């Protein structure tokens, strides 16, 4: 038996079991350029969500997904189940747009547009109104229950709950005419309406109030595959270690490295300092307990502790850890690009504020590319940009052309399934069909039905004209007849055309005569 040493280690009980639940993140409030853009995005996107169902168009709800009638209305467009292909194309366009913009500018979607981010932002505002900023929220959570705590927590949840319920109501309003829904609220709602209002409210409350960044880190597939679209020319939120390292507090009055003899560090030295700092955090870093240490956890590499630096050797990072405190996913951006980063730019705004106070040039953390950070030129036009861009463009054009050139008429013919053919008096053979005509337009139409067929196969009763109301589906029984010397399978074509000549459909089918 070998006497191999097995490294057994006691995991301390201070909430540090490997199965510990996530520590709560208390993002510190911050303002700045990127936060302003995020607020604008919140207002625009949520504005669309809450306002659209109330808009009217042509006497109906402008945006309505009428599931019972199987029809979607989006402003001037209406979609039928037969237009399913356009929905599928729309999803492809959305996917490709995500790829395209991710390749160029990183996770714009996550930072500005994802419903998870947007609703979390609003819930955070409400949390700040009732419980205060980061420090006060932490203190409040740690404090024993008191009248003040009960009031603050209670009003937060009351706000959240009201907002969530309104969100659920709006959501259902996309599927049921919202004015009627409002008039019947809430005691005359149907069972399913009530269920979906409550369900969507609960989902909003849970996701935006409690799960928050955990949705991005543990539930979102995009966070996991976005790296496939990233390269060194993609815009990312990046810390400049050449300028910032070695980090450390200092007295006021020292100039930025950009204005001092020290200048920028050499790349390998700078990244080594980051690596070592991550493994031997300073007291300040350890106190904010940033996650994402795995980003620099190179297996087999041992991080030596950092030496003590002279003040003149220090870089521009004063190690104030504000960038970690403002991060909604609780990571330390100084450790480099991490999949947890949702590119919200809070750390940029926070760091710029600090740099400004120190009298240093802004942009120690900045929206930049890896190449630019490493002092290399950035290429925007890359093969993948062209591929995604062209695919996206052609799909968009195809979609618009397709939607614009949809036939306003659908005609389908179903053969009678009970009998192939029927022999009737006068040596005639008959076949029965059901013709389905859908008038997709929102005005009444008249259609002429006629037949193109070989031999002397005829439409019993001859060509005829039928009326269809706006968006009406007609089901017409039709009979074709011919002499019984018509044998086997014969191709026939039903022609349906509108009287105004705007729409015409030919529907092929078969006419069967006796075999042998």
């Amino acid at each position, binding site marked *: 038996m070998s006497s191999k040493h097995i490294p057994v280690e006691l995991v301390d009980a201070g909430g540090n079991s490997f199965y510990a639940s996530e520590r709560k993140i208390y993002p510190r409030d911050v303002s700045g350029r990127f936060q302003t853009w995020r607020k604008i995005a919140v207002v625009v996107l949520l504005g669309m969500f809450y306002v659209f169902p109330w808009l009217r168009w042509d006497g109906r709800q402008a945006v309505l997904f009428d599931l019972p009638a199987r029809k979607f209305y989006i402003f001037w467009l209406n979609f039928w189940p037969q237009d399913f292909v356009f929905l599928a194309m729309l999803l492809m366009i959305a996917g490709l747009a995500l790829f395209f913009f991710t390749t160029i500018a990183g996770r714009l979607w996550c930072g500005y547009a994802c419903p998870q981010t947007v609703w979390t932002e609003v819930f955070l505002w409400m949390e700040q109104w009732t419980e205060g900023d980061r420090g006060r929220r932490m203190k409040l959570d740690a404090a024993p229950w008191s009248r003040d705590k009960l009031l603050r927590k209670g009003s937060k949840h009351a706000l959240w709950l009201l907002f969530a319920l309104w969100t659920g109501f709006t959501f259902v309003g996309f599927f049921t005419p919202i004015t009627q829904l409002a008039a019947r609220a809430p005691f005359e709602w149907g069972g399913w309406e009530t269920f979906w209002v409550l369900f969507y409210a609960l989902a909003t409350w849970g996701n935006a109030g409690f799960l928050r960044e955990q949705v991005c880190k543990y539930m979102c597939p995009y*966070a996991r595959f976005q790296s496939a679209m990233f390269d060194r020319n993609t815009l990312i939120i990046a810390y400049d270690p050449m300028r910032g390292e070695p980090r450390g507090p200092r007295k006021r009055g020292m100039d930025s490295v950009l204005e001092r003899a020290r200048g920028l560090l050499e790349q390998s030295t700078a990244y080594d300092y980051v690596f070592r700092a991550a493994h031997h955090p300073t007291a300040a870093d350890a106190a904010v307990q940033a996650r*994402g240490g795995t980003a620099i956890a190179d297996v087999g590499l041992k991080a030596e502790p950092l030496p003590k630096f002279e003040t003149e050797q220090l870089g521009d990072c004063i190690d104030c850890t504000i960038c970690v405190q403002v991060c909604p996913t609780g990571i330390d951006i100084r450790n480099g690009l991490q999949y947890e980063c949702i590119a919200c730019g809070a750390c940029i705004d926070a760091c710029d504020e600090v740099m400004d106070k120190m009298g240093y040039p802004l942009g120690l953390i900045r929206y930049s590319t890896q190449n630019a950070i490493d002092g290399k030129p950035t290429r925007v036009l890359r093969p993948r940009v062209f591929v995604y861009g062209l695919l996206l463009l052609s799909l968009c054009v195809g979609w618009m052309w397709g939607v614009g050139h949809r036939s306003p008429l659908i005609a389908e013919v179903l053969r009678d399934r009970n009998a192939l053919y029927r022999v009737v008096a006068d040596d005639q053979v008959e076949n029965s069909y059901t013709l389905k005509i859908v008038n997709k337009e929102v005005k009444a139409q008249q259609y002429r039905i006629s037949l193109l067929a070989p031999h002397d196969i005829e439409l019993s009763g001859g060509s005829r004209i039928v009326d269809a109301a706006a968006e009406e589906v007609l089901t017409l029984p039709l009979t074709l007849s011919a002499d019984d010397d018509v044998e086997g399978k014969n191709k026939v074509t039903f022609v349906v055309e509108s009287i105004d000549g705007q729409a015409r459909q030919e529907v092929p089918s078969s006419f069967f005569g006796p075999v042998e």
Partner: protein
Amino acid sequence: MTDFTEPRFDHPPRSMSQRLGAILWPSFFSAGVATMVFFAFVDPLALRDMTFPEVSVTRELGYTIGFFMFWLATAGSSLFTWILLRPAARFNKPLPPEK
């Protein structure tokens, strides 16, 4: 004070066959059960008549298509689960160098 920056234990990546097995086998099993339950109540021919009546489909083909559609869905779900359960270290790698 616990040092949270210490890298935690990550299981090394499993072999491709283990990964494929863990994704395809449970989904195959679920698809089988789903197919049995579904077609115990739904006749593939009735399903055809209400969807694509022009296409000639036999019952056997209907069962087969049904099974593979179920498997596609369950395997997709298994794949998703696998991606979400991969540890962060597999994703947090430096950007690849430029060619």
